[in-house]
């Protein structure tokens, strides 16, 4: 059993929801990334999404575009991102790490070489935004113990959901709105309806992301999703913090979301 599946099982047994923060590797500075990952886990993150910076992040809004630019300006490469995961794994052998990004750096490295290196580094899952199931080398990734995380969107038809459900592993990631990352217009009621539909088709845990910007929305989404993904808002928190306060700032922010999620679960239990 992979770390991702194991994590979701444990959380389910504890009656908890997964909190998945996203940070771009190398932002705000390459030497901070591993510490940031540990800080996120310490604050209550269950899985980590580590962004691989790309020159043309078409699915991202302004915040993550800027994060990508900062990381690239610092010279961060896919190989370095994998080194960061290796370093993270020396102290943390349980928290799943998912690489998120765009296909071209992987295409350039070579699919087999990437799959091997990612496995060696201790990566658990790969989510490449512009790599739909029709083009995907899913067996190659699966053979190297990498879960294939796919996106589902408000425009995904039921037929396509079935196709994706067959190829996905770990969990599926529901993009909660039509738009880029960091948008503001998430509607929890609509998301709830779609997730109910996804569950009739797909047995995997369902994470929700794109547009979750505060604890209140995270709580609303966690009532029906298995995981909430928060990216742009965390990137913005780091961006606005002085360099020596970055770790405390995100630790505090993520801890608040964690408390809100756990408290809501307890409330529900009491009400039941």
């Amino acid at each position, binding site marked *: 059993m992979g770390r991702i599946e194991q994590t979701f099982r444990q959380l389910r047994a504890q009656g908890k929801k997964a909190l998945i923060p996203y940070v771009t590797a190398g932002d705000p500075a390459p030497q901070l990334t591993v510490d940031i990952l540990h800080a996120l886990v310490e604050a209550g993150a269950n899985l980590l999404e580590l962004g691989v910076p*790309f*020159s*043309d*992040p*078409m*699915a991202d*809004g302004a915040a993550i*575009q800027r994060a990508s*630019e900062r990381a*690239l300006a610092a010279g961060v*490469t*896919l*190989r370095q991102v994998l080194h960061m995961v290796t370093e993270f794994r020396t102290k943390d052998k349980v928290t799943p790490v998912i690489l998120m990004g*765009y*296909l*071209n*750096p*992987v*295409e*350039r*490295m070579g699919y087999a070489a990437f799959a091997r290196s990612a496995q060696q580094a201790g990566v658990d899952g790969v989510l490449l*935004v*512009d*790599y*739909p199931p*029709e*083009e995907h080398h899913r067996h190659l990734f699966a053979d190297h113990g990498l879960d294939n995380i*796919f*996106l*589902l*969107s*408000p*425009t*995904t*038809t039921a037929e*396509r959901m079935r196709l994706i459900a067959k190829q996905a592993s770990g969990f599926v990631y529901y*993009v909660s709105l*039509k*738009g*880029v990352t960091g*948008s503001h217009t998430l509607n929890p009621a609509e998301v709830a309806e779609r997730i109910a539909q996804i569950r009739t088709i797909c047995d995997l845990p369902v994470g929700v992301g794109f547009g979750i910007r505060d604890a209140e929305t995270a709580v609303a989404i966690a009532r029906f999703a298995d995981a909430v993904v928060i990216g742009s808002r965390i990137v913005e928190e780091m961006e606005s913090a002085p360099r020596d306060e970055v770790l405390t700032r995100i630790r505090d922010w993520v801890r608040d979301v964690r408390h809100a999620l756990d408290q809501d679960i307890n409330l529900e239990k009491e009400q039941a």
Partner: protein
Amino acid sequence: MQTTELPDAGGHFGQHGGVFVAETLVSALQTLRDEYLRARSDATFMAEFRHELKHFVGRPSPIFHAKRWSEHLGGAQIYLKREDLNHTGAHKINNTVGQALLARRMGKRRVIAETGAGQHGVASATVAARFGMECVVYMGAEDIARQSPNVYRMKLLGATVKAVHSGSKTLKDALNEAMRDWVTNVESTFYILGTAAGPHPYPMLVRDFQAIIGEECLWQMPELAGRQPDVVVACVGGGSNAIGIFYPYLQHESVRLIGVEAGGEGVLSGRHAAPLTANAPTGILHGFRSYLMQDADGQVLATHSVSAGLDYPGVGPEHAWLKDTGRAEYVAIDDDEALRAFHDLCRYEGIIPALESSHALAQAAKMAPGMDRDVILLVNLSGRGDKDINTVAAISGITL
């Protein structure tokens, strides 16, 4: 309009092409593909397309024998396919008319476009006005600075021009931003993609709409010169004018096809926009696989060209395929050579060519002197150069 086996059902031309987009866009692209395939075999749709090309665009565009310039060069005869005489001054309008008709057929009231030199932006704004649609054009901030007359044209036509300040502030970044708009407004909006690139079905449908260029040449050349040309030359950025003139000639195997990329400061300098000539590796950008200028880590490189319309790090997937099969050859012309051809055509033939098209002209000028006088070179003069006079004047040290 012709159909061949390529692309395959998934939009592939050999190893190139395909659909590499975020999930949110997949169903929109499938709907577009299905609707286009229906439209292509719908006689009413095709008749309307032809009617617009004739009465709104002004087709067929003539072919002109550039006798004085050919005489001056002292070799092969150069013929020019005059796409510069189309309404809005370039070949871009052929495609935007086709896509606007598709948008209307699909009930979309809002269209978006990306633009480099501004020609596709103007052509999109024009058809949006013609069909009563809202139009937003994304344009890199650097391109806005070097193509100001086209920016004002788009505004006159009622379009909103949005400056893109991310990345290199040129065509590729405008495309990123247009994709972001589309993913946000996918239900209300039709994305009029300007070149034979992007995710399937765009490379196919842009090629088909632009193929009118070559189809006309097939009957015009025998009429004017008594036979088909020996060589067809066209500039290649994304590659829409080139595929438009090449496509109907693919099965005429004795006709050499030459695509001309932007050599910028020279292919060896690294400061260019010539992925095919420079033997760039394959990459994935803007929804498709093709040869792509990138660094060793897969980050897309900034490109350099005097011509904004060729300033693109990738190339349409069908050109990559034609390079692989050897059916077409690809070469690069640098900024200085293109400028020389620009001035020569002005002086010898009384035609001000676009800087993009000047790259194809320069390649013909390079080849002609070494050839017999009965050899025929057909150059796609894809656009007129009025939009470029500020750029050329600045290079010549003249303030307008």
